[in-house]
Structures are given as C-alpha cells and as structure tokens.
C-alpha cells in the first residue's frame, strides 16, 4: 500500500539527489522477497491446482490484489479469515513488486497490471467460470482500468469486483506535483516500522510515483467519460471516510462515472475510519474495536458474494 505520497502523518521525506542506501533488512534490498516468488503454489490458485478437478472448478475464485509498493501480505488476513470452502483466494503479486528497489523503479503501471491479467487468463484457461477480484488502493485503480479499457469484454466476465480504498484521487496534495519535484527528490522515504519494511518498499522511486499518477489519470479520464460494468458483474466500493492516502472523493468519482451494465448505480459504502486499506490491520499499532468491526464487515460482505 501507499504511505507518504501515499501515506500520511508518519511520513518523513528524504531529499536526495542519489539513490537511497538500501540494506538487506528491507524489502527494497536483495535478501527479502515476497514469498509468492518462491512458493507460487501457496499464493496462486493456478499454480496450486494446475490440473483442477471438476470439484475444484466449481469453486469460486477471488483474486486478491494489493496496492502500490505493497506485497501479497496486504490480503493475508482475508486468507486467514476465510474458512468458507466454497471459494478460494488467489493472492496476486503485482509485477515490479516484492522484489528489489531497481525492479520496482523500472516497472510501469502496465507491468503492475499484467500480473492480474496473467492469473485471470490462466484461471479461465484452466476452466474456472466463477471468478471475482478484490483490490486495495492501487489494486482497485488497476481493476478499474481493466474495466474501462474493455479488457473483460472479450473474456469471461468477473462475477464480482470489490474495491477497498481505491485510489483515483490522492489525499496527499504533493503527489499531484511529483512530476515536477520528483526528479529533484529521486525517491521518497516512508517512515514505517522495521516489520513493515519487510512487506512494503521503504523507498519509493519518483518514477513509480509518476506511473501511479499516470494510471490514476487514465482511470479518472475514463470515469469522466463514463464507464459501464460488464454484464453480470457486481461491483462494490468500500472506502474509509477519512482515508489519508486515497481521497474518499475517489469513490465519489467512481460512483458518478461507473454504472452497472444496465445503467444502474453501483454500491458504495463509507466506513467510519481514518486508515488507508482498512482491511489490513496486521502490523498496525493500537487497533481499535471499530477497525476490527470494519474489517469484519467488509470480509463478511465479500465472502457472502462468493457462493
């Protein structure tokens, strides 16, 4: 997920004209990688069941897509919470993510998106017919781009799309001028805990922030022009009322610009929350009962649509 340019109050900017000093205790380094790279069968349904049985194919598969700079860890709690045998979760690692700083720096938003497409198409090829997608933060933005670009038009239509704190407009006011100040900053350093350093990039190259702004711009423009969901696809947006990273106005833009295939309104639920990606509570400090209730509410609603 995002934190400074994509995070909020615990942010420390480092002004520099050179690449950051990266140590091996960071995801950015050469020692820690997302575990889905070592054991894809533990994360991707297509890898775990390369020859699915009819019983397997009857399962509803939900792709869980994380946000900018994050890893599969972002949806780990949903996997742990899910005990419903009727659906399975495929945790997608966006390309360019979960690797080292240079890989992240060199990636484009189209690279990020290609991992979603790859798993979605593999599942279709394997014979699955009930596929849904949930995306947090930029994961939601990428899902919206797939819809607005017509990606699903020539493929199996997803059953459900869920967006959690989707990013269409940033809450951080400096992100919109990253293209101007970015080359001077080179990168942005996020003040996060040592444990979080293993699952989110600590250093965000300005090139990737520009990519993020680019995909947001594409989606915003498409929403301004008007977008329709594929037939038979249900979509719901969950958004923290005071999201410090992805402005809640993002969900207003989605609500105005995205209609069901029949031209109806989509569902939006505002959560009484001031954290970004409210479905991820692990490694957060001072988790409240309300935050737990919000997470449970979203998980329950998502699971109820996967029968």
């Amino acid at each position, binding site marked *: 997920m995002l934190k400074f340019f994509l995070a909020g109050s615990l942010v420390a900017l480092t002004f520099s004209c050179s690449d950051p000093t990266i140590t091996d205790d960071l995801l950015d380094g050469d020692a820690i990688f997302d575990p889905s790279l070592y054991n894809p069968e533990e994360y991707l349904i297509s890898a775990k069941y390369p020859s699915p049985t009819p019983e397997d194919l009857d399962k509803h598969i939900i792709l869980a897509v994380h946000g900018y700079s994050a890893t599969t860890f972002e949806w780990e709690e949903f996997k742990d919470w899910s005990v419903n045998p009727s659906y399975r979760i495929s945790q997608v690692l966006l390309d360019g993510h979960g690797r080292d700083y240079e890989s992240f720096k060199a990636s484009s938003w189209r690279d990020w998106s290609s991992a979603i497409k790859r798993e979605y198409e593999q599942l279709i090829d394997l014979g699955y017919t009930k596929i849904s997608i949930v995306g947090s933060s930029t994961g939601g933005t990428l899902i919206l781009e797939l819809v607005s670009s017509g990606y699903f038009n020539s493929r199996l239509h997803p059953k459900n799309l869920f967006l959690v704190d989707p990013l269409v407009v940033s809450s951080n*006011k400096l992100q919109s001028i990253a293209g101007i100040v970015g080359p001077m900053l080179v990168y942005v350093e996020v003040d996060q805990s040592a444990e979080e350093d293993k699952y989110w990039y600590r250093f965000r190259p300005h090139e990737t922030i520009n990519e993020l702004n680019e995909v947001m711009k594409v989606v915003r423009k498409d929403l301004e022009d008007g977008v329709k969901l594929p037939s038979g696809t249900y979509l719901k947006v969950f958004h923290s009322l005071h999201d410090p*990273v992805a402005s809640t106005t993002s969900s*207003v833009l989605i609500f105005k610009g995205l209609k069901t295939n029949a031209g109806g309104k989509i569902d939006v639920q505002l959560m009484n929350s001031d954290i970004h990606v409210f479905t991820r509570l692990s490694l957060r400090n001072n988790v409240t009962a309300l935050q737990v209730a919000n997470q449970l509410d979203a998980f329950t609603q998502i699971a109820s649509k996967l029968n």
Partner: protein
Amino acid sequence: MTFSDLFQRRLFFPKVLLLCIILFSNIAVAQGLKVGLRFQKTSGMYWENGISTQYSFANFKPNRLFIGFDFVTSRVGTAFNSNAINQSSSLLSASWLFNKSKAYHFVARLNMGYFYSDLEEEFFKEIPHSAFLLSPELGFLYDFKDIPVSLNIGSGFYIITAEDGYSPGTLQPLYYHLDLYYRIFNNPRK
C-alpha cells in the same frame, strides 16, 4: 449628558462622517477597472474557467495595487458534459504590479477565498467537500497599447494545512491560469 457633551457629539460625528466620505471618495475613484475571462488548470486535476475582475484606486497606489475578484468553476471546464465533479472557487485578491510605467508587468498576488465541490448524493455529505483558500501567486501582465485589452498569466499554490484525508480530494495545490481582460476604464494618472 450635559449640553456640552451633546454639542461635542453633534460636531464630532458629522466630522468623522465627512472625513470618511472624503477619504473613501478619494480612494474609491477607480484608476482602473478590468473585467474578463479566466481559464484555469489545476496540475493533475481539472480545468476550471470563469470570470476575473481587477480594480485599482486613483489616489492609493494607482496602477500598482489592485484588488480583484475571481470566480472559476469546473461546470464550464472539465465537468461540462462529463462525470467530473462540479466545483467552484471564489477568490479575493490583492496584487502588486512591478514595472508600473511599462506595458508589461510582473505581478505578485495573494488570494483568499472559498472552495466548494458538489458531491450531489446525500450519503456523501460527510466527505470533505469545502475549504478556505489561501494562495500566493506570481504572474505576468501585458497591457496592449492600441486596444483596451490586457493579458495575464499566473501560477499559484494553495496552502492546504488540513490533515491528509480531511480536505476535498479534487482540491489540488498547484494551478495555472490565463486571464483575458477588457479595460472598462483607465483614468489618467494624477
């Protein structure tokens, strides 16, 4: 109250009133009034267009100090015939022009105003949608000699102090604008 007090008041208040009228009439005789159109783009966000006026006093820093009023809205910008959010900004400004005697001027300006975005749906009412505005701005103004037209370009930066997540999402800080003015009157300098 004594007769003397009453007398003092009777004389005092008319004197103050007269002084105010003289002062105001001296200052309020317009040295210049320009009205025109503004075309404004926010970096990474919307086109918002509208009107702009600039006014300078005859006897107080003529052609140096201008006060202005601007109103821009996305309704005649990006939101026109699209799903973009209808939003508007109203700004009062004070400007200082450099190169007073020349046709071109550098302009320093301070704006204060109010931003409002219409989120339309009742269930969005708790989402931040309005804000007070404060922005310093730099620009360049050119007065055409043969026609009563002025051209102004400027760029400003909204100082947004609200915590992330507590200000309108479509209010972004950096903006650029082009103003096309018609000089309604421009009294000779005293």
